[in-house]
């Protein structure tokens, strides 16, 4: 037994030291953290890109746009993924600490889809109606007010937690610059959780990224005004901006990216990286790359 222990110990030591040598010698570490909306996509990028670039050790994490930007401020994150723009306060802190600006790189587009349960009879909704549902005044609280019969009639409303980038974006886009959310909504702490909650709730309504659709839920077509056509969220409608609730997803770096970060970002924006964007249910940047 003691012998066995010794052997195991020595082997473990060898493995660890080998690992250390490997790290110390050539691997450059790049940590990509932030938006929950982007975490699956970033993970996939790193998987594919990393398979061909073994000299770079990528590390991907979520937690929210704010977490990534905060990590960048204290130096633990090299690239911050964000579904919102950096706030003036944050930009100032970064500039002060590093002497460089936080540089945005648009890496994908995201159309925020309005989700309902798959058996919900409603098919389209206007921005004004959304405002009535989500706004502080709550002029719409029942499905019958939207012209459909759902049992129970009360809209079971889902929001995101108030610190998420998706929440802030939806607020600005749907409720307007000075619009306030109603407090009469449940909140989910992730893009995926909100869809999971709607799956099991016939009278639920919520919003989340396009990439999170499952068989248990469906998208509503969105009308900019009561008279304009109802637009389904899709790559085309997000790129030509006819779908009213779409936004750019960004990766922030401190100053111009260099070395491995630059190579990675260039690849992400190339057709190789953008192919994955499409596969994961997001929208590719720019329609100049040939549409399909």
């Amino acid at each position, binding site marked *: 037994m003691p012998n066995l222990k010794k052997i195991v110990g020595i082997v473990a030591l060898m493995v660890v030291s080998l690992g250390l040598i490997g790290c110390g010698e050539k691997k450059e570490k790049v940590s990509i953290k932030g938006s929950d909306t982007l975490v699956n996509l970033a993970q996939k990028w790193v998987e594919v890109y990393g398979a061909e670039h073994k000299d770079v050790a990528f590390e991907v994490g979520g937690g929210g746009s704010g977490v990534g930007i905060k990590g960048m401020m204290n130096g633990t994150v090299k690239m911050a993924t964000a579904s919102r723009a950096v706030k003036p306060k944050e930009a100032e802190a970064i500039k002060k600490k590093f002497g460089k600006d936080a540089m945005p790189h648009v890496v994908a587009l995201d159309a925020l889809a309005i989700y309902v349960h798959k058996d919900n009879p409603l098919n389209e909704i206007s921005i004004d109606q959304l405002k009535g549902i989500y706004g502080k005044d709550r002029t719409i609280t029942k499905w019958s007010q939207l012209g459909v019969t759902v049992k129970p009639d009360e809209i*079971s409303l889902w929001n995101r937690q108030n610190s998420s980038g998706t929440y802030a974006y939806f607020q600005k886009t749907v409720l307007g610059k000075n619009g306030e959310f109603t*407090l009469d909504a449940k909140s989910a702490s992730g893009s995926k959780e909100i869809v999971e909650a709607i799956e099991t709730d016939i009278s639920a309504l919520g919003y989340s990224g396009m990439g999170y659709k499952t068989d248990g839920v469906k998208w509503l077509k969105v009308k900019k005004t009561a008279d304009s056509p109802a637009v389904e969220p899709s790559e085309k409608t997000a790129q030509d901006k006819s779908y009213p609730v779409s936004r750019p997803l960004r990766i922030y770096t401190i100053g111009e990216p260099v070395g491995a970060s630059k190579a990675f970002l260039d690849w992400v924006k190339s057709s190789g990286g953008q192919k994955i964007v499409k596969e994961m249910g997001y929208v590719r940047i720019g329609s100049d790359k040939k549409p399909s």
Partner: protein
Amino acid sequence: MSQAPTQPAPDPRRRKPVVPMLLDKSEPFVQTMIRLCGWSAILFVLAIFFFVFKEALPVLNDLDLGEFFTSDQWRPTSEVKEQFGIFALLAGTLSVTALAMLIAVPLGLGAAVYVSEFASPKVKESLKIIIELLAAIPSVVWGFIGMAVLAPIIKTQLGTSDGVNILNGGIILALMSIPIIVSVGEDALRAVPDSYREAAIALGASRWEVVAKVLFPAAKSGLLAAVLLGVGRAIGETMAVLMATGHKPMTPGSIFDPVQTLTATIAAELGEVFQGGTHYRVLFLIGIVLFVITFIVNLTADIVVKGIKGKTNE
């Protein structure tokens, strides 16, 4: 070993064997180590106190405490007007905890009595294993069960507009606290000497009378500790309530309303908050509020236990 066998009458000063002598010598060292362990526990608690207070206190300059406790407007990230009113969150925490205890205490103590007094040895062993297994389920899993399994059941069976609500959170929290109540309560009951039971049975008491009139009074403080540990678990729980209660910052009107609890608020918002800002500090202030609630619970428990002890000593 070093002593020559030819010396039959050893020097009295050398009578002590080597090992105990070493122990004697190491005694001060061991004492210091143990003292250090004890002090470090206190030190950690103080350090946590210091840190939480240090982060929270600066906010008192620009926060109206009256509004903080009585307003139900929780809008910490509003760009129009930031509002920090925790009344609804406080109501959320208290209502979910109260409901959880209403379910968990009778069930937990009942199960403890059954396991300790009535179950056959075989049943007892398997029950104990299963209950311990119940305690090992991570809270995220509990939350998921609440959201994905319990919520649709509540919604369709009771016809409420929300499946995730106080009832859901209360049931999930109760299920999470029951294992603690059962195992601590069972220990307390087992600690009652058998002579008590024998004496009661000899006097003609039924099994139920033995439990109600002999065991419960004898094990009172242990059972109370079991209940309080359960309360602590329920108040402090974060992930499960975050998912099962719906996380809606409104004062509830019935147990079918979704609520947002203090712990879940910290968990959901601290990660993305601007460090050093008002929102950040207010979240730490909520931490202090939780401290105070727990302190009151523990203090009440202490007083109650002392009261019980005083009575039984008479």
